[in-house]
């Protein structure tokens, strides 16, 4: 009985270990030739096509909410001239990578998990291995790289759309002055803020694609297994993304000194 409880309690650690081992396999396969360029481009196009519009639509209210919140708060401190800077910081460092991650995981990751899961239960992956082709090299690596690439560019798009949305709301609704908003950009924000945002987007794309691929390739038990795999992959990705975001933000804030004045 005790061993049963123990094995059940330790099961998540086993899963985490397998996921990590899978990530290492992927990392090794990245450098194996020939690179699957065609699959990579197809996947990048596919992931971009399912994420661009929703991401843009999410980015506008995201930027607006931050502008409203930060703008209101900053007004109480009497520091309106820094509104632009504060909302840029918030959008580029946090909102853009997180917004990107949610959509990459929700739209891109779920599609990857469903696709690989369906291939798994139709024995396509087995057939591929038997034909002497490693599905990790052939299918997973292009998806992971495509996801990272798309996340990187989506992050840029969210940053631009979010900042623009913030600008519109600040200027139109909060009677901010356009010049002050734009001019204060560089007051608090600095270039490393942009780098960390892009780095986060890359890491989030990596995590989302690895988890989705792992879950898809280990789907089992018929169509229901695929549904479960998709569901689990989205939930696990979200959890991991927020942890990763926390860790990355902590490290960044420790390592890079904030810009003063």
């Amino acid at each position, binding site marked *: 009985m005790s061993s049963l409880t123990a094995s059940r309690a330790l099961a998540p650690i086993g899963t985490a270990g397998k996921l990590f081992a899978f990530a290492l396999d992927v990392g090794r396969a990245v450098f194996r030739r020939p690179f699957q360029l065609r699959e990579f481009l197809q996947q990048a196009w596919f992931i971009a096509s399912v994420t661009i519009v929703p991401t843009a639509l999410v980015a506008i209210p995201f930027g607006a909410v931050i502008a409203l919140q930060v703008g209101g708060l900053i007004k109480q401190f009497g520091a309106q001239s820094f509104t632009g800077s504060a909302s840029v910081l918030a959008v580029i460092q946090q909102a853009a990578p997180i917004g990107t991650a949610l959509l990459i995981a929700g739209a891109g990751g779920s599609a990857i998990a469903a696709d690989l899961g369906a291939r798994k239960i*139709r*024995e*396509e992956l*087995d*057939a591929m*291995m*038997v*034909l*002497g*082709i490693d599905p990790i090299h052939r299918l997973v690596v292009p998806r992971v790289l495509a996801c990272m690439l798309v996340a990187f560019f989506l992050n840029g798009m969210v940053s631009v759309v979010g900042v623009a949305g913030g600008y519109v709301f600040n200027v139109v609704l909060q009677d901010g002055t356009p010049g002050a908003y734009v001019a204060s950009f560089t007051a608090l924000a600095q270039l490393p803020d942009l780098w960390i945002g892009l780095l986060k987007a890359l890491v989030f794309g990596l995590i989302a694609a690895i988890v989705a691929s792992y879950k898809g390739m280990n789907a089992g038990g018929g169509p229901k297994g695929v549904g479960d795999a998709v569901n689990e992959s989205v939930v696990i990705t979200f959890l991991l993304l927020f942890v990763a975001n926390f860790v990355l933000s902590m490290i960044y804030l420790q390592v890079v000194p904030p810009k003063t004045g």
Partner: protein
Amino acid sequence: MGVEIRVDDLTKSFGKQLIWGDVTLTIPAGEICVMLGPSGTGKSVFLKTLIGLIKPDRGSIIIEGTDIASCSERDLYEIRKLFGVLFQDGAMFGSMNLYDNVAFPLREHTKKTESEIRDVVMEKMDLVGLVGSEDKLPGEISGGMRKRAGLARALVLDPEIVLFDEPDSGLDPVRTAFLNQLIVDLNAQIDATFLIVTHDINTARTVPDNIGLLYHRHLAMFGPREMLLSSEEPVVRQFLNAQKVGPIGMSEEKDADELAAEKDQELPPLPPIPMQLDPSNGIPRRSQRPPGEWCRENGVTPPPGSFESANAGLAPGV
């Protein structure tokens, strides 16, 4: 000329559930073998273990001096190039049409030009009778066609070993007969080692050179076709003759009460052993033995009426 597969002391369990244990057999090069067993005895697991998709708990599978059960991932991918596998539902790649599916292994593993690939693909498509359907997607064709397409893809790299996972499941009797004929003709043509996993006794009685029977978590018997078809061993006899009397019950094995109730029941006589299916050109395959040879050599009297017709011997008459 085919490759021999030596399986020694193979054991596999999922969790605490033993699937089969101590399976030891040698699949001779170039011959057709059938692995039989009631539903749920791990026939497919056995097949997947042979190609290294599932790692056994114990034991070895030696092919050309490489142990599949313990070799490295890299060796495994290398040795798999010897294999052609027909999966249960064909396992065609859903996103590609049949032509691309069959061409896929060639494009991945060879440096052939597109026109050379076209020649090979069309030859294999012709072999399985699918010329004219190259542009169809796997979702658009029937199960039987998917199986044949899967077979074409399995053959495209000229394998030394071909594994069939239930080639007859979900096919009507006529298509099954055609597929069996195709299997025999193929063996005559390419001389590869064939292993067919099935529970269709019709196939088992007429197609192979050797038969194996998995039952009750072990290999009950493995040997030449005539040895099993003339065997008095209860399990073998019951399964190969599709009878209700015997140790196999509806759910796995029968309990003691049921067996006791059957004790006095007269076992129906063994049906005659049918002729082995000949290649359609009439020339015997290299590994084919003359009918009745094994029985004569081993002093076994085959059931009356044996080797007189190609009828599987289960229905009276003909």
